[in-house]
């Protein structure tokens, strides 16, 4: 077990109001898994991604990442964990615009304390792995969206993390580039990379080996349960509206 979330709650404080975003979420990922977490916007999937990525801490629950109790870590050791264990792929690529593809990929190596002399070779290898061996010295604005996302994937892989964590990786891409990225994910997973992907798109989620569904802060194993939850939510919203209109 690489990653184990048990009974996670996350509540945001909005003025005096407590807004529960995640409710009793339990989730585990094994080595070599390819898991998609699918949910509509506002379902709490970004919050879940931030928690899995150690960017945010849950209000309640436990989170074991590769044997480490994430909740007990300081800001600096969380940085270290992110550096070592997690490779991020963002919807909007998040490349540094002033740096070449190669330098963007080299960035996490410097945070991991890899000696300067070795960084270039490792980064070049990662870029070749995502099929960008020819465009290493291109600036991000000279690359297409799909190529940018592949640079981001190379950057995520460069420290050899335990989990590749992707947040809507195809969200900003056209269909063709999106398909290429999904193909790349499949290939990487076959090479042994553990992938957790968060998306709203069932077509994209279908590329994963396993899918979980998140609705209104709760996680479901089966799509029917999730659908049911959505229906219930809609009904209760309607009911609330109708009581409101009756009162008015």
């Amino acid at each position, binding site marked *: 077990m690489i990653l184990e979330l048990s009974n996670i709650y996350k509540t945001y404080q909005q003025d005096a109001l407590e807004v529960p975003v995640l409710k009793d979420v339990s989730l585990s990922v094994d080595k070599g898994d390819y898991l998609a977490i699918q949910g509509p916007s506002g379902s709490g999937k970004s919050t879940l991604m931030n928690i899995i*990525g150690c*960017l945010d801490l849950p209000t309640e629950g436990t989170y074991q990442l590769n044997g480490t109790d994430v909740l007990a870590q300081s*800001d600096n050791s969380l*940085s*270290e964990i*992110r550096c070592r264990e997690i490779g991020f792929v*963002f919807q909007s690529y998040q490349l540094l615009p002033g740096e070449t593809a190669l330098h963007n990929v080299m960035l996490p190596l*410097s*945070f991991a304390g890899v000696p300067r002399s070795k960084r270039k070779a490792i980064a070049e290898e990662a870029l070749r792995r995502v099929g960008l061996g020819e465009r290493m010295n291109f600036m991000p604005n000279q690359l297409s969206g799909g190529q940018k996302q592949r640079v981001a994937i190379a950057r995520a892989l460069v420290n050899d993390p335990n989990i590749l964590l992707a947040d809507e990786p195809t969200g900003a891409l056209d269909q063709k580039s999106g398909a290429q990225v999904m193909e790349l994910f499949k290939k990487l997973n076959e090479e042994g990379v553990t992938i957790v992907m968060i998306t709203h798109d069932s077509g994209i989620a279908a590329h994963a080996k396993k899918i979980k569904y998140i609705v209104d802060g709760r996680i479901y194993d089966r799509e029917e349960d999730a659908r049911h939850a959505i229906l219930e939510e809609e009904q209760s919203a309607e009911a609330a509206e109708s009581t409101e209109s009756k009162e008015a």
Partner: protein
Amino acid sequence: MIENIILSMRGIWSHKLRSILTMLGVIIGIASIIAIVSIVQGTNRKLEKSLIGSGNNVVSVSVLQDNWEYDFSSGVPSGIPVVNDASIANIKQMEGVVDAGKFHFRQGWNQVFYKDVGLSYGKICGINAGYLDMVEYQISAGRDFSEEEYTTGKKVAIIDESARDIMFNGENPVGEAIEINKEPFVVVGVAKNLNKQEEEYESINDYYMNSYSNGQGQVFIPDGTWPIVYQFDEPESVAIKVENVKQMQPAAKMASEELNMYLTSGEYSYGSSSGEGGEELKMLTNAIQLMLVGIASLSLLVGGIGVMNIMLVSVTERTSEIGLKKALGAKRRVIMAQFLTESAVLTSVGGLLGIILGIGLAKLISTLAGLEFAVSIPWIFISVGFSMGIGILFGAMPASKASKLNPIEALRRD
């Protein structure tokens, strides 16, 4: 670290105008400090030269009235005895003193003539054997006084090369007769000042004297002859040769104390007219330097605040970059180091530009005002260190702010 410095340099270059404007406060501050210090040090160097005198490490102690050398041509006041030999022996024993000897001294208008050409403001010294050696004069023509001449009141004279040039116009003066205070003297030799340089003045007073009189030149006569030309029992000055320049003032002070013991009139005292004024002037220029550097430092403070301001803007502008780096695993100190380096490089570059500007400014001012120009190497290092320090000091707050950014918030911005 080197990576950070290169990155910062690139950042400065890519925002040229903004960087220059940010650095302006530091540039002006450092430039004014360097210019002020250079000019003050140049002035001090000139003062020091005047304090050192002719470079022979000899300081003279004579009777002063209200800190001005007393002119014995208006008579010898009571209460001032001649210098006794025991005092000279004591002075010779003092720390740092190499040699000491007494001499008579007079400087005045048209006291020395050759035919009808006079030394308008010449100096006349009544000297004993060994004095010329002590003040580092060498006989360049003719001869020194004989032992007999030194003591028995012969009317013989040695003139220095300046006096020769003024009065003799290229003729050979040896064997010629000159008139000193209306008495005829035979010139037996010409002495050359071994330390003579352009524009060397023995005291600040001399400096002003020389600005309205071009009459230079010195005439030496045997001390034994002095009473024939001037007056009996005229108290002497004492010339003291020391090991190095720094000992001149202390030796003069100690010797004055020794000589003052024999004075019975409180109106007069022994002292060195050269030097004291110079020391005071030096203290004054140093005080002025301190004040001006203080004012210039204010501009550095303002410059530092400007740097802090622009660094805060830079942190805000680069929120997503910082967030990304933190998400990818950069620790706080990595972010902190990046921004501290950036502000330190910014102000250091500003400091270097300021130094160049300041040296140029000092050169310009000293040329225009006819002052001496001296670049102070230690102050250049102080300035570089200081500007770097300002960068670190005023960069600390923005850098710390950047390092504490929440990566989620930072990534959500765009």
